[in-house]
């Protein structure tokens, strides 16, 4: 089945913009899940050898360089190459960051059984630019992860908050935070700004997770399955305090997480609207009229001068 058959819908894209992640349970076939850990083990060894200044001679796959197109990162016959070329995976990737994005980096995260290592919440890399474009990070879990057994902790809908990477470590607990657990072959896709943290693994099984960051090389505008776009993409009059739709993109972007209470949440909606303007190439898009109201006044001032 071609990649185009696996592209995300407009609804799913809007959900990604609202929550900062999507989850696909048991997406990766068991043949890959059962065989890929050997490759991960060598990849992990090579990465560590390289970091400590030794030649990466553990064998196995060669470490790709940043800026390598995704299609050239790993041999297609390798299990990791097969995974990254699955039409189901490429459909998700292409919807969010366009075809053949650039490899930023990847990392094998192995949490040994009994590990007490615990990270503070953080954002990867450095404080981000203010524009609405984004990278994605795939989090792939090749084995079952039981609740509390070292799954990644994350806070839905934190992705549009511009913070320094470690500045969010002060938040020990936020309402609505989640810790991944699920079945083998589950793929999570994060907006690069989503707050997350590694957790201890009190189980008696090593926990493996593979993470890869991808940069778009083309505009991210309307790369997904557009079949439902016209039905749910709303105009700027869709407004909770006037006349609102319950079947629109705006309605999805209005959904709030438990930690998003009070008037502060309105600013969150405004940021989501800016991302959707970019993705949909509709500079007039709005959620609850916040941008439109202000922009009309700006036009008045410009016309009078």
């Amino acid at each position: 089945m071609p990649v185009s058959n696996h592209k995300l819908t407009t609804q799913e894209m809007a959900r990604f913009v609202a929550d900062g992640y999507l989850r696909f349970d048991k997406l990766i076939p068991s043949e890959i899940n059962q065989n890929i850990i050997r490759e991960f083990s060598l990849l992990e060894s090579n990465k560590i050898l390289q970091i400590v200044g030794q030649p990466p001679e553990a064998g196995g796959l060669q470490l790709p360089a940043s800026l390598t197109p995704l299609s050239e990162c790993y041999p297609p016959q390798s299990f990791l190459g097969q995974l990254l070329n699955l039409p189901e995976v490429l459909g998700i990737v292409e919807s969010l960051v366009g075809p053949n994005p650039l490899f930023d980096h990847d990392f094998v995260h192995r949490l040994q059984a009994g590990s007490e290592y615990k990270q503070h919440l953080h954002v990867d890399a450095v404080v981000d630019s203010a524009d609405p474009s984004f990278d994605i990070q795939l989090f792939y879990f090749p084995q079952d992860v039981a609740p509390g057994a070292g799954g990644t902790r994350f806070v839905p809908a934190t992705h549009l908050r511009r913070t320094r990477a470690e500045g969010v470590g002060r938040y020990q607990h936020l309402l609505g935070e989640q810790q991944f657990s699920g079945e083998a072959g589950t793929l999570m896709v994060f907006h690069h700004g989503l707050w997350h943290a590694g957790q201890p693994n009190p189980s008696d099984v090593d926990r493996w997770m593979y993470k890869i960051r991808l940069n778009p090389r083309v505009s991210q505008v309307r790369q997904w399955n557009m079949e439902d776009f016209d039905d749910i993409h709303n105009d700027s009059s869709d407004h909770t305090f006037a006349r609102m739709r319950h079947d629109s993109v705006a309605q999805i972007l209005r959904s709030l997480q438990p930690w998003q209470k009070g008037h502060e949440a309105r600013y969150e909606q405004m940021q989501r609207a800016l991302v959707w303007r970019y993705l949909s190439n509709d500079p007039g898009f709005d959620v609850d009229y916040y941008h439109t109201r202000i922009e009309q006044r700006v036009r008045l001032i410009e016309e009078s001068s």
Partner: protein
Amino acid sequence: MTKRQQVLYLWLAEGALDTETIGWAFHDGTDGDGPQLPDEEPPYVSGLAALQDGWFLMQSPSPLALHPGTEHEVSYLVNEFIFERRIDI
């Protein structure tokens, strides 16, 4: 007898102390010898509830300064209240 400090951060929904708790952090200078937080999540439904349980307010957030062009950005949680209690151990 020695005094040790326990520190509680509460992030509230809005700038008023009696609004809902959305996040929290606890740092325990007694290393577990002093009283612990209630088991509920969140441990206190508001900053006011923490006061009523004996916590003393150390810091209340100032309203955000507005900078032209960034008024609508979101960043760190703005309504950060810090409490302490001093425990004899």
